[in-house]
């Protein structure tokens, strides 16, 4: 996030929420937003589901799943046409206005109305509300990024913020709400195939700096992305997979395909606190201390480094993850793994990236209850708002307005981009984006299928399903397939009847919940439950050409009502559950 989440309560004049179900997934951020609304802030919500936040919004736009770029381009078009953009900011601090102007020319609010039925006047109203605010914050989550045009979706959002000067001030910004406690930290620590904790692996200066601390040269070749791994295993390139604190069997798209791939590995090591659905497939399982049993730091969505305290002792022999890793590294014979406490690792991180973390000692993090990076020295107060000097992190210090176009057929994206580049003479190192749908509904699979979370569970449920008040109390209903009213009516589905949802990748069976908040033609389920994991059906073949992300938030599917006998049969075929607290919840595959 460019900004601090507390500013939603104190400073934002407009909150622009797109592809985020904030009250379910980030309840306390939603609380801060609602405090802002009490103060008088306005709220725009754009989502295929009429979420609780949508019901509280001043403007709600119900989009078809995946229809973001045409809508955002239409808003940008209107803002430019009506001269509502911040000329001072755009002229002094950005590049690319002409490119964007050209790219959005075909996108009008009227076109959106024609294509989706969303009234053009609503699109205009939202664009004007956002553009005219003194400080407007854009917030989004995976409902923007998990598509084949996720990166271009984010280009469009940052275009909006740059055009209206909504960067570098309190209450504004472009704010991805991170879904997991330490996504920000995992990225900043270099758990990425192309980025280390000091910068890009392709940067010779970065490699030199790391060598000066590690004593070893690192590779300049970017590694494989997580989404490439099943293919790389099948090609025989990856032989040894080490998974720690993740449950990819459930969280990765197209479950069946992932399981088949990992079975071809020479060795899969899983390090976790439970025998997860992934650990059951492993060749070696290493236990480790959990949260509450070890100290360290997390980085929240506002880039705030916060202390995590050890409160209880783990079982005998069980040590924190970093110590397990060091035990293995030392046995391999690697140098530089003789840390005896977590703080020593953190102090090395501060040396690796002094610009961000230099001033953040454990003592200070604890005393000040967390501090946002960059914080280069002990006297620096931290940086809750990025870009206050109106300088981007790019070499020329300018913000880039990126032209984003849209293809009716995903196959045409590259050629359309090329046409745009040639037409405008865009330099080869300047980014260009494009959007398209990964799959379109057809006769066989006539429904759009999307996934998300519920407030009382988290991700693949490994932790929350082991908490009785959550699993047995709040969530007594268990997994459900939520359908829009029209789907229910057309297929004679009733509340609590059994149904199976399927496509070419897999199927899941669960009870039906008719959800009037869903846009017509939409099916929704979660990925919390191994016995009915939405990711069984997710698209693993298409990727975002820029990020490698799979379109987990959209695929196509068919749904039909089934009898209880058939329901039990499907469950028996597909279940691989680690939480066998009731019938049909046993380990099978």
């Amino acid at each position, binding site marked *: 996030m460019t900004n601090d989440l507390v500013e939603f309560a104190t400073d934002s004049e407009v909150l622009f929420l797109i592809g985020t179900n904030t009250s379910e997934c980030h309840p306390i951020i939603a609380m801060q937003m609602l405090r802002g609304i009490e103060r008088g802030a306005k709220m725009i919500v754009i989502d295929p589901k009429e979420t609780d936040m949508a019901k509280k919004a001043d403007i709600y736009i119900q989009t078809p799943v995946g229809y973001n770029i045409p809508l955002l381009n239409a808003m940008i078009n209107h803002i430019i046409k009506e001269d509502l953009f911040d000329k001072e900011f755009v002229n002094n601090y950005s590049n690319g206005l002409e490119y964007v102007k050209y790219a959005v020319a075909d996108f009008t609010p009227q076109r959106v109305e024609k294509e989706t039925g969303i009234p053009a006047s609503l699109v205009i109203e939202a664009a004007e509300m956002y553009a005219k605010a003194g400080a407007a914050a854009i917030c989004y989550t995976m409902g923007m990024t998990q598509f084949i045009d996720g990166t271009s979706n984010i280009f469009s959002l940052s275009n909006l913020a740059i055009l209206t000067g909504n960067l570098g001030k309190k209450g504004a910004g472009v704010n991805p709400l991170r879904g997991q406690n330490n996504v920000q930290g995992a990225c900043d620590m270099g758990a990425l195939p192309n980025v280390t904790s000091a910068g890009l692996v392709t940067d010779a200066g970065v490699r030199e700096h790391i060598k000066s601390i590690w004593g070893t040269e*690192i590779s300049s070749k970017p590694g494989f992305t*997580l989404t490439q791994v099943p293919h790389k295993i099948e090609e025989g390139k990856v032989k040894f997979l080490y998974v*720690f604190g993740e449950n990819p069997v459930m969280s990765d798209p197209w479950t069946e395909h992932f399981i088949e791939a990992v079975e071809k590995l020479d060795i899969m090591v899983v390090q976790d606190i439970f025998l997860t659905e992934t650990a059951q497939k492993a060749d070696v399982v290493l236990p480790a201390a959990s949260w509450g049993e070890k100290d360290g730091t997390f980085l929240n969505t506002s880039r705030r480094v916060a202390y995590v305290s050890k409160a209880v002792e783990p079982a005998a022999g069980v040590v924190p993850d970093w110590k397990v890793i060091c035990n293995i590294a030392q046995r391999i014979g690697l140098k530089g793994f003789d840390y005896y406490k977590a703080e020593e690792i953190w102090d090395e991180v501060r040396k690796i990236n002094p610009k961000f973390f230099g001033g953040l000692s454990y003592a200070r993090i604890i005393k000040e209850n967390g501090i946002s990076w960059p914080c280069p020295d002990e006297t620096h107060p931290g940086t809750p708002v990025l870009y206050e000097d109106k300088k981007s992190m790019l070499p020329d210090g300018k913000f880039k307005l990126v032209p984003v176009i849209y293809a009716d057929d995903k196959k045409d994206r590259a050629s359309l981009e090329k046409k745009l580049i040639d037409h405008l003479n865009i330099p080869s190192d300047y980014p260009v984006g494009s959007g398209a749908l990964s799959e379109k509904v057809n006769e066989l699979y006539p429904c759009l299928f999307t996934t998300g979370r519920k407030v009382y569970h988290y991700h693949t449920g490994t932790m929350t399903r082991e908490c009785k008040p959550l699993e047995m109390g709040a969530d007594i209903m268990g997994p459900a397939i939520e359908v829009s009213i029209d789907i229910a009516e057309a297929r004679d589905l009733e509340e609590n009847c059994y149904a199976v949802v399927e496509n070419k990748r897999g199927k899941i069976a669960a009870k039906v919940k008719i959800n009037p908040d869903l846009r017509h033609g939409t099916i929704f389920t979660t990925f919390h439950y191994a016995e009915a994991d939405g990711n069984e059906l997710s698209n693993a073949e298409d990727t975002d050409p820029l990020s490698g992300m799979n379109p987990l938030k959209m695929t196509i599917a068919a749904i039909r009502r089934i009898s209880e006998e058939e329901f039990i049969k499907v469950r028996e075929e597909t279940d691989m559950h680690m939480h066998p607290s009731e019938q049909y919840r046993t380990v099978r595959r």
Partner: protein
Amino acid sequence: MEKFQTTCPYCGTGCNIDLLVKNNKIVKAEPTKGHHVNDGELCLKGLYGWEYVHSPRRLTKPLIRKKDGQFSKEGELVEVDFDEAYDFVASKMKTTVEKHGSDSIMGFSSARCTNEDNYAFQKLFRMQGTNNIDHCARL
């Protein structure tokens, strides 16, 4: 009862929680009062989401897939001691790199674990000459 101020292990909001501990067991979670991020509030997961720490299903011993006492892909997961498991993983990792090159090993790091865990993990892979490391931020 002892009190430990910590950060919630669930979503990216980063609420602060006071854990109350008795006889080496967490017995209650309370929102940290007056904290910048959550200002005395927590959601259901923050309030009740700590019970898994003491779940009887927690792993306490390493497991290796074995058949007739030997490592085998066809075997069952059996309990082994820590030294055996660490030695086994280290030697397999080393021989895989020697036989198939640095890029034949791959690590999935964790967006739920600490910065320190993540840093150590990527260092383990990069020190062996590969950048094959990713985590499920994408998922």
